[in-house]
């Protein structure tokens, strides 16, 4: 449930927020809510960042292109070995551990993301397979 809370913010900051919201086609409220939410998450998980992909906003491991959900997929396939997962992606173990910590806090959200991503891939593969069959 949403509640109203008043903040006193500098004019420049508000103007910057409104300008950025216009650029993105968002409302200032929606953008402020997202930035606040992501800022709080970053505060707790400093090795996790957020960026826009073609399919929407996503949590990634800082300094990489790796989505947290993608790291978790590999971590689960690697018998939950942080060492093996780090070797696989060739990144420090601390970054894998950071993804696991983030997953622990937002497991439902990440699992939904993983499920949607897999469903999309399965549909695309089936459509491609049917199309290929027409050529044989």
């Amino acid at each position, binding site marked *: 449930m949403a509640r109203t809370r008043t903040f006193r913010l500098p004019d420049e900051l508000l103007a910057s927020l409104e300008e950025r919201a216009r650029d993105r086609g968002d409302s200032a409220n929606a953008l402020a809510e997202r930035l606040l939410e992501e800022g709080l998450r970053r505060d707790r998980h400093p090795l996790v960042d957020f960026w826009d992909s*073609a399919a929407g906003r996503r949590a990634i491991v800082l300094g990489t*292109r790796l989505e947290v959900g993608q790291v978790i997929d590999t971590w689960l396939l690697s018998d939950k070995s942080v060492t093996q997962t780090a*070797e*696989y992606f060739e990144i420090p173990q601390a970054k894998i551990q950071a993804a696991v910590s983030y997953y622990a806090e937002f497991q439902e959200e990440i699992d939904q993301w993983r499920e949607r991503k897999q469903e999309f*891939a399965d549909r695309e593969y089936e459509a491609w397979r049917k199309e290929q069959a027409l050529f044989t």
Partner: protein
Amino acid sequence: MRDRGDRGVWSHALAEQRAVLTEDVRDFTLLVREWAAAGESHFGVVFTSPRSMSRRAKTFGLYVERLDDFLREHPADDALADQIAWLN
């Protein structure tokens, strides 16, 4: 390439006239559709699934073998132009 977003990778592949090999089906499918809708060409996308084509150390040999076979079957630089293919 690690610090580039999907669009950065896509632009780089276009500039170098390369196909993209990726597990990221959703994001790159959407990019391909966006590109096609704008009437632009690309040099192909090859998708793999971590479930059937894992790049883990234990199965990496299989991955390389399949990719090698695929590339031998498609030797031309533009063999995948405007196409999506799957290695599965």
